[in-house]
C-alpha cells in the first residue's frame, strides 16, 4: 500500500482498541519470567555448548601471537575460534570495526577469540588461559585534543545554513557564545547481547537479541559470505536495546563461527564488563552555540557546531540536527565535524543527535533567556516557527510545541519559579525549576506484515518487527483487532523472525507508526479477501464485534474463516509527504530539583513531559516509553559518563557499578501528558514516534533546574556535585 496522500477517515479512527490504555499482551509472560530471551532458549535445539568471548587488551595495534595451548587442553573444551581459523570474513554494511579482531586490533575489547566448552564454567576458565602477545601502537583517545584535527565528514549533510549568520550575529544586540560538552554514554540495556547459533545443511539459525532483524540477517550473510536465504534470525524478546542492538554484534557472529567450528549449537552472551568497550556507545560531543537576539527576545541568529570522534569509517554524532528545525531565526548556520579516535565504535543510542544536541541547545536557550531578562518558556514560545526555517516553503505537518509549553507550564506550577537563581530554599536545600523543549523527527520507512485468519477465527499477525520493551506486540494486536473487528484475545502476534515479512524494525522511534501502518495495509488486504469470500460489497463493509456488516447483511467472521484459512501480506510504502512536510514530534519538559546547600547533592523532585506525537496508539505503553526516556534523561544530566582512559584508550568504568545509571532512589513520580492529535500526513495510523521524544530535552530541563536552584551553570555534563560545590550560594 502506497501512502502518498493525507489519510482520510479509516477504521482506525473508531478507536475501540487503538488509543485504549490496554495492558501489554505479552505482559503475563514477562512478569512471570516466562518470556524467552535469546540465551534462554534451551528448547530450540538440543546439545547446546557454551561459548565465552575474550576481548583485546589493547586499544590499537596487533596480536603478534596467541598461545592457545593451555586453553585447548583445558577440561571440557570443544574448540576455539580466532581470526586465524575463522576463515575469510566480510564486514557487515553497518559495522565500523570488525566483530572478530586479529591480527589487527581496532579498539579495546574487540573480540579476539571464542572458546567453546561443555559448560559455561569450563569455557570461562579455559578462555582465561589464552595468552595473547600484543604489539600496541599509539592511538588518539582524547576528543578535546583531536578536535583541531577534525574534518568535514563526507556524508551526512555536515554543513547547513540560511541567510547570513555572520552578519546577523554581528549586529545582534544580545549575544551568547558558549561551549558545551557531553560525555560518551553507554546503552547499558539489561539483557546482555546474546545468541545461540546452530547450523544445518549449510544454513545457520541464530536465536538472538536484535532490534533490526533484516539488517542483522543481511549483515550475518555479508560477514559469513553466505547467501541471505541461508541465514535465519529469531528475536521474539529483546531485553532492551536503546540502539545498542540495532546492529550485528560479536555474540551473533562468534556464536555462528563457533557452532560451525565445533559442529554443535553454541550459545554465548557478552559478559557485562565487556559490553561497554566491545559494543557501540553514544559518542562524546563538544558543541559551540552562538545565539543573537533582539532586546524583545526574537532570535536573529543561531549557530550550532559540533565535534565528535569515531574510528575510521565511523559516523558523526549529529548533535546539531534539531537546531535546524526548532526555532525561527533569519541567520542560521550548523557545522558537524568528525575527529578520528581509536576508542570503541561510536554509533546510535536512543535519540542519536538530538539527545546530545538538546543538552547543549536547551541550556543555551536558558542562558539567553536570562540575558534577555525573559521567562524561558516565553522565550521559546516567541521563537516558535511554523515552517522549516532553512526552507520556509516547507511547513511542519503539525507542530504543537507552543501548546506543550503552555500546558506544561500551567500544570507544573511554573509561575512559582523564581527568575533569579538561588532564591528558593527549603530547609537545607535550594530548590529550582527548569524547562526545555524537545524535538525528534517522525521517520517514515516501509514496513510489511502477513495476517492470517485461521479456520477457528483467530487472527495471526507475522512480521519481523521487534518489541524491545516498546509495546510493539500490543499495538500491533490493537491495530489488527481494530481493522478486523475481533477481540484482542483472538489476535496472536508473532515478532522477530526473519522468515516473516520485513518491517521497519525498532529504532529511531520509527517502529510504532510504521510497523502498525504495515499491519494496517495487510489487514486491508485481508478484509478484501473476507468480503470477496462472503460475496459482500467492499465499499460499505464494516468490521466490528466479530462480524462484517454490508448493506443489510451481518455475517460472522467465523463463517468466512470456516471455509479455509485466508492469508494477506502487504506493507506500507511512502510517497513524498515527508519531503513536502517536515514531520516531527515535540515535547516540553519540566523538572524540579533540590540541591543540598552543604553537599550540593542533587535530587530530582518532580518531572513532567507534555508530548505532541500524533495519535497515541496505547497511552499506557506510550507513557512508559516517555517516563523511561525521562529517566535516561536524568542519567544523562546527572550521572552517566564513560570515563576515558586517555593513556590506554578505553572506557575505564565498564560495568554497572562504575557506569552509573538512575536507580529507584533517583527517580520521583513522573507525569506525562499527551496532546494526542492524529496527524493524517504521517500514515493511515495518524501516529508518530514517541519512544525517543521523552529523552529529547529531558536532561537539559534537569540541568536548567540545577542552575535555577543554585545559580551555578555547568556546561560540561554530567552535572555532578563536584562541579557545583565551589560556587554554591551561601
Amino acid at each position, binding site marked *: 500500500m502506497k501512502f502518498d496522500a493525507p489519510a482520510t477517515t479509516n477504521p482506525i479512527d473508531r478507536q475501540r482498541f487503538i488509543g485504549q490504555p490496554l*495492558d*501489554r499482551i*505479552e*505482559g*503475563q*509472560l*514477562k*512478569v*512471570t*519470567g*516466562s*518470556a*524467552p*530471551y535469546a*540465551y*534462554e532458549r*534451551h528448547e530450540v535445539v538440543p546439545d547446546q555448548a557454551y561459548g565465552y568471548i575474550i576481548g583485546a587488551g589493547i586499544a590499537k595495534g596487533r596480536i603478534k601471537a596467541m598461545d592457545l595451548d593451555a586453553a585447548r587442553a*583445558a*577440561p*571440557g573444551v570443544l574448540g576455539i575460534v580466532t581470526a586465524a581459523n575463522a576463515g575469510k570474513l566480510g564486514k557487515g554494511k553497518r559495522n565500523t570495526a570488525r566483530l572478530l579482531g586479529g591480527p589487527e586490533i581496532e579498539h579495546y575489547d574487540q573480540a579476539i577469540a571464542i572458546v567453546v566448552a*561443555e*559448560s*559455561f*564454567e569450563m569455557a570461562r*576458565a579455559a578462555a582465561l588461559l589464552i595468552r595473547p602477545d600484543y604489539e600496541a601502537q599509539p592511538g588518539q583517545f582524547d576528543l578535546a585534543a583531536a578536535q583541531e584535527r577534525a574534518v568535514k565528514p563526507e556524508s551526512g549533510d555536515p554543513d547547513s545554513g540560511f541567510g547570513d549568520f555572520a552578519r546577523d550575529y554581528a549586529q545582534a544586540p544580545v549575544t551568547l557564545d558558549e561551549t558545551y560538552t557531553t560525555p560518551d554514554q553507554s*546503552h*547499558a*540495556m*539489561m*539483557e*546482555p547481547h546474546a545468541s545461540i547459533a546452530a547450523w544445518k545443511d549449510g544454513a545457520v539459525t541464530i536465536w538472538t537479541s536484535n532490534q533490526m532483524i533484516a539488517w542483522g540477517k543481511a549483515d550475518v550473510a555479508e560477514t559469513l559470505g553466505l547467501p541471505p536465504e541461508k541465514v535465519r534470525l529469531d528475536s521474539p*524478546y*529483546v*531485553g*532492551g*536495546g*536503546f540502539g545498542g542492538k540495532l546492529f550485528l554484534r560479536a555474540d551473533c557472529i562468534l556464536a555462528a563461527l563457533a557452532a560451525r567450528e565445533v559442529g554443535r549449537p553454541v550459545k554465548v552472551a557478552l*559478559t*557485562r564488563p565487556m559490553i561497554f568497550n566491545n559494543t557501540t556507545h553514544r559518542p562524546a560531543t563538544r558543541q559551540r552555540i552562538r545565539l543573537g537576539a533582539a532586546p524583545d527576545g526574537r532570535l536573529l541568529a543561531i549557530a550550532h557546531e559540533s565535534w565528535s570522534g569515531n574510528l575510521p569509517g565511523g559516523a558523526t554524532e549529529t548533535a546539531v540536527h534539531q537546531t535546524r528545525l526548532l526555532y525561527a531565526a533569519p541567520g542560521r548556520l550548523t557545522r558537524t565535524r568528525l575527529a578520528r579516535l581509536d576508542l570503541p565504535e561510536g554509533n546510535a543510542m536512543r535519540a542519536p543527535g538530538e539527545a546530545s544536541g538538546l543538552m547543549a541547545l536547551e541550556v543555551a536557550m536558558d542562558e539567553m533567556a536570562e540575558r534577555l531578562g525573559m521567562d524561558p518558556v516565553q522565550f521559546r514560545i516567541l521563537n516558535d516557527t511554523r515552517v522549516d526555517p532553512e526552507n520556509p516553503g516547507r511547513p511542519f505537518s503539525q507542530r504543537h510545541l507552543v501548546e506543550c509549553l503552555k500546558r506544561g507550564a500551567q500544570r507544573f506550577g511554573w509561575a512559582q519559579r523564581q527568575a533569579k537563581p538561588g532564591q528558593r530554599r527549603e530547609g537545607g536545600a535550594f530548590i529550582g525549576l527548569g524547562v526545555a523543549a524537545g524535538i525528534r523527527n517522525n521517520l517514515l520507512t516501509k514496513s510489511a506484515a502477513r495476517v492470517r485468519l485461521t479456520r477457528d477465527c483467530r487472527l495471526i499477525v507475522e512480521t519481523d518487527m521487534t518489541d*524491545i*520493551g516498546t509495546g510493539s506486540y500490543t499495538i500491533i494486536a490493537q491495530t489488527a483487532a481494530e481493522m478486523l473487528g475481533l477481540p484482542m484475545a483472538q489476535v496472536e502476534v508473532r515478532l522477530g523472525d526473519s522468515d516473516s515479512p520485513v518491517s521497519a524494525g525498532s529504532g529511531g522511534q520509527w517502529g510504532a507508526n510504521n510497523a502498525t501502518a504495515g499491519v494496517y495495509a495487510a489487514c486491508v488486504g485481508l478484509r478484501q479477501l473476507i468480503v470477496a469470500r462472503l460475496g459482500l460489497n467492499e465499499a460499505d463493509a464494516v468490521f466490528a464485534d466479530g462480524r462484517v456488516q454490508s448493506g443489510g447483511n451481518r455475517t460472522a467472521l467465523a463463517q468466512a474463516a470456516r471455509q479455509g484459512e485466508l492469508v494477506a501480506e502487504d506493507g506500507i510504502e511512502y510517497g513524498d509527504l515527508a519531503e513536502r512536510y517536515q514531520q516531527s514530534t515535540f515535547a516540553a519538559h519540566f523538572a524540579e530539583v533540590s540541591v543540598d546547600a552543604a553537599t550540593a547533592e542533587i535530587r530530582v523532585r518532580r518531572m513532567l513531559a507534555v508530548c505532541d506525537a500524533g495519535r497515541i496508539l496505547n497511552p499506557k*505503553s506510550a507513557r*512508559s516509553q516517555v*517516563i*523511561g*526516556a*525521562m*529517566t*535516561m534523561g536524568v542519567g544523562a544530566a546527572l550521572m552517566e559518563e564513560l570515563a576515558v582512559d586517555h593513556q590506554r584508550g578505553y572506557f575505564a568504568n565498564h*560495568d*554497572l*557499578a562504575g557506569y552509573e*545509571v*538512575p*536507580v*529507584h*532512589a533517583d*527517580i*520521583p*513520580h513522573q507525569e506525562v501528558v499527551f496532546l494526542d492529535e492524529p496527524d493524517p500526513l504521517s500514515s493511515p495510523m495518524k501516529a508518530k514516534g514517541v519512544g525517543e521524544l521523552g529523552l529529547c530535552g529531558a536532561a537539559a530541563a534537569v540541568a536548567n533546574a540545577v542552575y535555577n536552584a543554585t545559580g551555578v551553570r555547568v556546561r560540561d555534563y554530567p552535572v555532578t556535585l563536584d562541579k557545583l560545590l565551589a560556587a554554591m550560594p551561601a
Partner: protein
Amino acid sequence: MIGGDEFDISRRAVLLGGGALAGAGPVRAATRKETDMQDSPTMMEVSFSVNGEARRLRLDTRTSLLDALREHLQLTGSKKGCDHGQCGACTVLVQGRRINSCLSLAVMHEGDEITTIEGLGQPGELHPMQAAFLHHDGFQCGYCTPGQICSAVAVLAELQAGIPSHVSPSLTEAPTLSEAELRERMSGNICRCGAYSNIMEAMREIAGEPA
C-alpha cells in the same frame, strides 16, 4: 549439561571444597586419583528445594546459584544482567530473604528453600505483585522484571519485619512504609527502561498507601 563419572571429583578438590564450604552438606567421596585442579572440575552434589520442589544436582562447584537455576534446571525466569551483583536481575528468595543469585555458589545452598519468579506465580495465576506490575506497566523490555518483582515482594516483608534501611530515621523503631523506604530498598534492582515510577505505583497498590 554436565554429569556422569568423567567429572568425578579429586580428593584434594573435595578437601578444598569441603574446607571452603564447611557445612554445605555431605560430599560424595572421590573415586579418581588426585589430579591437577585444572584438569578436572570439582563436582559436588547439592540438594535444595526450588519453588517447593526437591532438587538434587551434581554441579561444578564454580556454578552460581543463578546458573544452576537457568542452565541446569532451565528455570530461566531469573535473569543474568551483569553476573556481578550490580543489577539485581537475578534476585531470588532464599529462606524467604532476597539475594543476588549470581553472587552465590549453588553448592552453598544445601537444604535451602529457594523461590524464583516462577514460584511466585504463573501466567493465568499471577501473584498479586505480578498482577500489579502488569496493570501499572511496571516494566518494558521485561528483562529486569522478575528480579524487580522478587525484590518488591521481599521489600514489603522486610518492612513488615521491621528491618531498617539507609533512609530509616531510626534503627530501633519500625520503619514506615514511605516511598523513600520503598525506593531505597529497591535501588539494587536496575531498570534501564526506566519503569521506576510505575513500579512504585505497583508496590503502593500492594502495600497500601504509604504513610
